[in-house]
């Protein structure tokens, strides 16, 4: 059994569906206690990668390891999973359902029941515990789904779009629970379209495009590699004042505010001098792009 506090690794994992390459030698690792965000457009291969990481789907080549060893049934039982397509038995009661899933992951009957009750309390489902899942509101169904991923005290968490369809309070609960689990040494990997959330929550991020992992690292690392941006406010400047500057691209130009992107070698003081030449400069600020902008760049680069 993989101990809590072990790393999850994907090593050159490839998968094809007929002629379509779903994953092309994707490698990344999620360290113990780390929150790893998995980002990509629809159909980029996120779900396929997660299904392979769980052992639900077999890879054509490559390996998935946890704590250095290949996935055994014992290790698979210690993974907590939330599928993108949410699914529970609609006619089963919340408590029965969670107890059953806990037992399927190897807990004894008594442990399963205790753990189910614990997560029911933790996620605020006490009053609905004897209701059929289909009678719950969508938000509560999502909570049960999260409880289903956590009820067997998993050593790894793999969550496919855990934040989609959550109300703001549930988003907070989910974030808190994920941080908590990571703090106990569990590697947590999740995919999401909510990039601001990923940026705020994750220790590291992997961006996948057409089955290839394009980039992977901490938010700081990813944005450090990207071209810097300048925000300049020069109210007297004529439109297009920065267009001719070498190595500078105008991203956005409003009457009092211009956003510029600089190629790596370009000296920002040269831009400042050009701005001052137009008159007073009220604001001059250098910033790294946000994850959203980075993501947009990475994805559009692929289309070119």
């Amino acid at each position, binding site marked *: 059994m993989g101990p809590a506090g072990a790393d999850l690794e994907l090593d050159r994992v490839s998968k094809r569906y007929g002629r379509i390459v779903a994953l092309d030698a994707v490698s990344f690792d999620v360290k113990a206690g780390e929150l790893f965000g998995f980002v990509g457009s629809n159909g980029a291969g996120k779900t396929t990668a997660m299904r392979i990481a769980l052992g*639900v789907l077999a890879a054509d080549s490559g390996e998935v390891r946890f704590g250095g060893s290949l996935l055994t049934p014992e290790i698979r039982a210690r993974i907590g*999973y939330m599928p993108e397509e949410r*699914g529970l038995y609609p006619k089963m009661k919340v408590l029965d359902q969670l107890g059953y899933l806990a037992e399927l*992951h190897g807990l004894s009957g008594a442990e399963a029941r205790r753990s189910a009750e614990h997560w029911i309390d933790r996620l605020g489902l006490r009053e609905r515990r004897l209701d059929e899942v289909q009678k719950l509101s969508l938000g509560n169904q999502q909570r049960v789904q999260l409880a289903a991923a956590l009820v067997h005290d998993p050593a790894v968490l793999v969550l496919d779009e855990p934040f989609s369809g959550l109300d703001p309070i549930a988003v907070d609960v989910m974030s808190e629970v994920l941080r908590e689990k990571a703090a106990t040494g569990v590697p947590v990997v999740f995919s999401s379209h909510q990039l601001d959330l990923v940026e705020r929550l994750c220790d590291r991020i992997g961006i996948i495009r057409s089955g290839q992992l394009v980039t992977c690292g901490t938010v700081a690392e990813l944005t450090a590699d990207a071209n810097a941006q300048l925000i300049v406010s020069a109210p007297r400047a004529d439109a297009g004042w920065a267009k001719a500057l070498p190595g500078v691209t105008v991203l956005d130009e409003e009457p009092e505010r211009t956003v510029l992107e600089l190629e790596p070698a370009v000296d920002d003081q040269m831009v400042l001098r050009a701005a001052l030449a137009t008159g007073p400069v009220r604001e001059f600020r250098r910033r790294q792009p946000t994850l959203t902008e980075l993501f947009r760049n990475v994805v559009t680069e692929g289309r070119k």
Partner: protein
Amino acid sequence: MTPTKAVWLVARRELNTRLRTRSFVIGTVVILVVLGGYLLLQATLVNGADKSKIGLSGQTIGVAAELKAGASQIGETIETVPVADPGNGRQQVAGGELDALLSGNATELRVLVKSDLDEKVRALLNGIAQQQVLNAKLVEADQDPAQVMREVDSVQVQVDRLEPADAGSGQRLAVGLVMVFLLFFGIQAYGSSVAQGVIEEKASRVVELLLSTVRPWQLMAGKILGLGLVGLAQLVILAVGGAVMASAAGVLTLSGLAAGAVLWGVVWYLLGFFLYATVYAGVGSLVSRQEDAASVISPVTMVITLGFVVGFNVMIQSPDGTATRTLSLIPVFSPMLMPGRIAAGTVAGWEIGLSVVLTLLAGAVFTWLGAKIYRNAILHTGSRLSLRAALRG
């Protein structure tokens, strides 16, 4: 967790959720009530069968003794009532209180019936009339009718039997037909439940969560085991309940017949379920929506229904005919027809052995195919998967 534990957990969920459902309890009770009603009807028919009430008017009152004696010889019971007023008798016939009204005299009998005269009663009455004429002729020929008739009656055909007489063959056939029906019902209903259950898991997407911790074969085996046990429980309740009611109603009098039928029924239910369940699971895994369920379930159910309808009819016509024997040896039909034939007592030991072996072989092949389809198709979502694509994987 061991594979056995996983299979048992899945099976236990099926048992828990199905046995407690209202539909299981109500379904079982309804079938028992229908069975009980049918048996009660049979019992009253047995007691009321071959019993006629005949009104005698005028001179025909004199034939009452002959009528009763003749009837008892051919196993009929006839009750006679004198009718003084023919008009009143006519009304009683119309009202169904009398089966027939006799008038005229012994040599020229007239019978009034509502619509049909029972053939046996007709023969009896013809015999009485003809006897009267014969007696008159014998007296004319100066013979003593009583003496002549004693001599005539002493001549009887001699019957030689190739097989010992079987007084209970009707009862055996009836029990056999009930077994055919119960097995058809059990295999078909619970086989379909397997397919429905597989589709439910696919449609609700819970299957992906389950497969993150158990293997597809464990999920399939657990479902089949669980539903198979639910079906078995129902079959035993119905068969034992039916046998008890039948004995109580006096319809079933052969000792050991019911117990044997129930035991063989259980054996063949297990064989039949083993044969069909994986096929049902396999076809169920091809679709992802409840709306598509019928399109994959009905072809399999059609094969079973065909076996039931054809088998039931050939058994009624001739329980040991060539058609019955041949059909009962074909594995897809054996689980319904064999227990029927065993109960009817028209089967040889080697036929039972051969059909068990053939059914097990076919079951092994079907299980291999069904499991392969299930494994390949269970995580496929969206449109219906073709059988060929599922087999290729």
